[in-house]
């Protein structure tokens, strides 16, 4: 089936709870990670291991800000991380979490069951 058109503009609010989108798979790589959306067929790159940690742990925190803080991102870099998450939200790689904690995934095991995130 064809991917849905990206018509809905996503407003990113770091004070809200977020998670990696359910149709998104993440693959660790030496430079960080690749993220791929099976829904939009878009590929993105997480360019640091710390950003990978932030994205992986979004679902464990009450807000994106909390996830960034808990990952040990230095204060001077936090604005850059908020911007990176805003970009990921715009491309539907992360989504706002409405129910906590998320338990269901759109995909079976495999791409979504990478190490450290059973």
């Amino acid at each position, binding site marked *: *089936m*064809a*991917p849905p058109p990206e018509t809905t503009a996503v407003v990113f609010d770091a004070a809200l709870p977020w998670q990696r989108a359910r149709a998104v*798979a993440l*693959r*660790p*790589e*030496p*430079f960080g990670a*690749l993220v*791929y959306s*099976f829904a939009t*067929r878009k*590929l993105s*790159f997480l*360019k*640091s291991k710390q950003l990978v940690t932030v994205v992986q742990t979004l679902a464990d925190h009450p807000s994106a800000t909390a996830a960034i803080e808990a990952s040990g991102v230095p204060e001077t870099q936090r604005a850059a991380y908020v911007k990176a998450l805003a970009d990921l939200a715009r491309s539907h790689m992360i989504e706002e979490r409405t129910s906590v904690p998320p338990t269901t995934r759109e*995909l*079976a*095991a*495999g*791409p*979504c069951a*990478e190490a450290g995130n059973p």
Partner: protein
Amino acid sequence: MTAVLPGRPVGGRLVDQFEYGLDAPICLTWELTYACNLACVHCLSSSGRRDPRELSTAEAERVIDELQRMQVFYVNVGGGEPTVRPDFWHLLDYAVGHDVGVKFSTNGIKLSKARAAQLARTDYVDVQISLDGATAEVNDRVRGAGSFATATRALENLAEAGMRDMKVSVVVTRENAGQLDAFKALTDSYGAQLRLTRLRPSGRGADVWGSLHPTQAQQRNLYQWLLAHGENVLTGDSFFHLSAFGEALPGLNLCGAGRVVCLIDPVGDVYACPFAIHENFLAGNVRHEGGFQKVWQESELFADLRSPQTGGACTKCAHFDACRGGCMAAKFFTGLPLDGPDPECVQGYGETALAARDGGRAAPKSSLDHSHTGPVRGQPTLLGLPAMPPAKICEESPLVGLDGCTT
């Protein structure tokens, strides 16, 4: 995991990271069979007849299992004509069921109404219909009589079944380079998306490349057209050599061979890139111990390809950062050195290099050829049988816009 090569930079530009390779390919092409009902003059894999050593269903399933473990998000399935494999639909379901998305290229021969409806219902499957002319006249000269009708019937079936955003995949040639707007209009009329790729001198393409590759003027038009259409037109990062005209085109803009791209051929051989079916670019076979993962992560050939280029004529060029020296396969199969300019270098260095080639030394040729040995139904007419129609697109096709006629 890939051994991290000495010298991999931390941070910095992604293109520099990709040159050092990845733990798994981003873009893996898997040709399921060398069998094809057509005999396109420019076939990159010289397909036609099935190879008796092709992977069995069980072997293909094992490859998919491995791709799932390696988190290869999707595969580009091609051939030959992949849908003529009797287990094609099974393998499609098997891949999707194992979280490996499938984008497959087809000439449309098997896309009946029923199959179109099945595809429209299946998630994580993208279909690419190959078409090399916006009109039957231009297309069928290269792909064979009746192939335009087959492709457009498949597009109709898909559109009718409610499939959206299927791709129409076009190899840009001297004969269709004036039809870009017509391709876009045709594609839009089916609710499909246009994908343009570059003609390589690979497979049978080597025999026709000299007469079919776009002229410099056509390359410039194409570059401007691609810039104007941005990400609405897909290119598979195919035209990065055009970035040396000035502005970078969307995409990674580097040769991904062995770094982010590779090919698994129908018999399980792994090559650096789909356009490089030649023993010099053969890295291993998925049937061997360790399977595909071992080939991707440990082959010496791929390790070599993952060392950034530091020497050669191109590294001294002001545009090297834009085009990274162009396409490896295009250089190789035109007999040019791999660290020199692309034969279609937009700065003109390729033409100079082609002219300076040693006339006594033939360009390398693949030892693999699965071409049909006898005539096929719908033989392409480009090669002269039957008599060549007029060479100019404009004389053949009243539908081509004036733009096409003035270039």
